[in-house]
């Protein structure tokens, strides 16, 4: 399984990438939505899950997800953010999960593992 992880904060990204890396065969890392979208386009066939922050410079997570959703409506996306607007919350569907910050790591890992199991099963 290849996981795309998008986060602008260096320290959070470095730490969480390690945790997520354990659960994926490979992990692609981007520091904003624009880079994330480019990586997705390059590896759209291989990427089977996305974990992304919302508030990021250049391109925010919601805009990136909206673009990706056009091509992959069923791709599992986990939004990890301290800030989520009510409007954005409404856009979350079965394939988009939301984990608030400060991150409950157990909850994030459980969600990732669950999605992985579903995909493998």
């Amino acid at each position, binding site marked *: 399984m290849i996981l795309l992880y998008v986060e602008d904060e260096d320290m959070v990204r470095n730490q969480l990438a390690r*945790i997520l890396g*354990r659960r994926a065969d490979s992990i692609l890392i981007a520091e904003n939505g624009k880079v994330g979208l480019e990586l997705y386009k390059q590896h759209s066939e291989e990427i089977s899950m996305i974990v992304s922050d919302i508030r990021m410079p250049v391109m925010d997570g919601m805009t990136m997800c909206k673009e990706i959703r056009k091509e992959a409506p069923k791709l599992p996306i986990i939004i990890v953010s301290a800030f989520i607007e009510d409007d954005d919350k409404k856009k979350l569907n079965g394939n988009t999960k939301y984990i608030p*910050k400060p*991150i409950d790591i157990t909850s994030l890992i459980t969600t990732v593992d669950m999605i992985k199991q579903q995909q493998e099963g």
Partner: protein
Amino acid sequence: MLNNPSTTALGLTSILIVSFLIDLLLPLGISPAILYLPILIANIRTPFPAKVMFHFCTLITAFIFIAYMSSASVMADESVIIMNRVLAVIAVWVIGWLCYIIKQGQIRLNEELETNKQKDSALIHQSRMAGIGEMIGYVAHQWRQPLTTLHLIFFNIKDSYEHDELDKESLDTSFEKSKELIETLSSTIDDFRDFFRPTDPSKGREAIDVFRSVQHVLNLISISFQKSHIEINLEIKDTKTHVLNYRNEFIHVVMNVLKNSKDAILDNQISEGRIWIRSALKDDRITVYCVDNGGGIDESNLHKIFEPYFTTKDSYGTGIGLYMSRVIVHSHMGGTISAKNTITPYGKGAQIEISLPIHKETK
């Protein structure tokens, strides 16, 4: 005991005037000190009301004066003596009464000033207290990121241990990172604690760097503003310009002005909220401009926004913030604060202008 130097000065001036008038009216050699008694008494704290003391002393003085005049072997026409006596008594009474009125006016003015001062300082305190909830929100935003990172670091230490990957180097790195984050959390608390430390006017005003103060405010509020999609552009040059203020008061003013901009942007649902903070140096003054694209202030309210308890924010506004800012800028910093509407590249908005005298020793 004389009340204060100004009443003493008033008393001395009165002595001169009374002496002059008495000499004019009575060229018979009466002691001005005796005639001044009622006025002097009016300036002394007694257990009786000043008004009673004035009338009592004037009567006593008049009796002493009449007795003196009667006992003196005055070689003059009887009618002139009587006229002089009457005129002298009237003169003493009138001048004494005028001094009494002036003194009472002074007392009332001082009382009024003192009451206003107390009212203002109570409002400043009230405003700070009102800001506590908001500041706790700011702290929460400031802490969220480092707390998340700390949580992840600890998780990774445990994870590394479980996978037998924990060596001294990775442990040291994690330790240093955690230490750094804890210091960040600690300094945030220091910033906020400083902010709420009450002002002690007895310690006097201190010179503060305008740029650093604005920067300090931005450090405190930036994450909260980001959350509200408001971009703050700091366009102040670090000119090392200092102004005098009581501890943290200028920071409070900047914070208030920015909060008003934020409220205007959110209330008017401006999607791309923008705030610009600029400055200009001219002669002995520095002017700080806070410009926003929050829709501006209703023209009919422009002259009212610095009045106490004036608010357009219905349920959540206290109407204290900008009034308090004006009190601080005007009374404590010797500056001016004004507002006007403006047009920015991102739409209509307001501009708050704070003009402050530069602290001379450091300019």
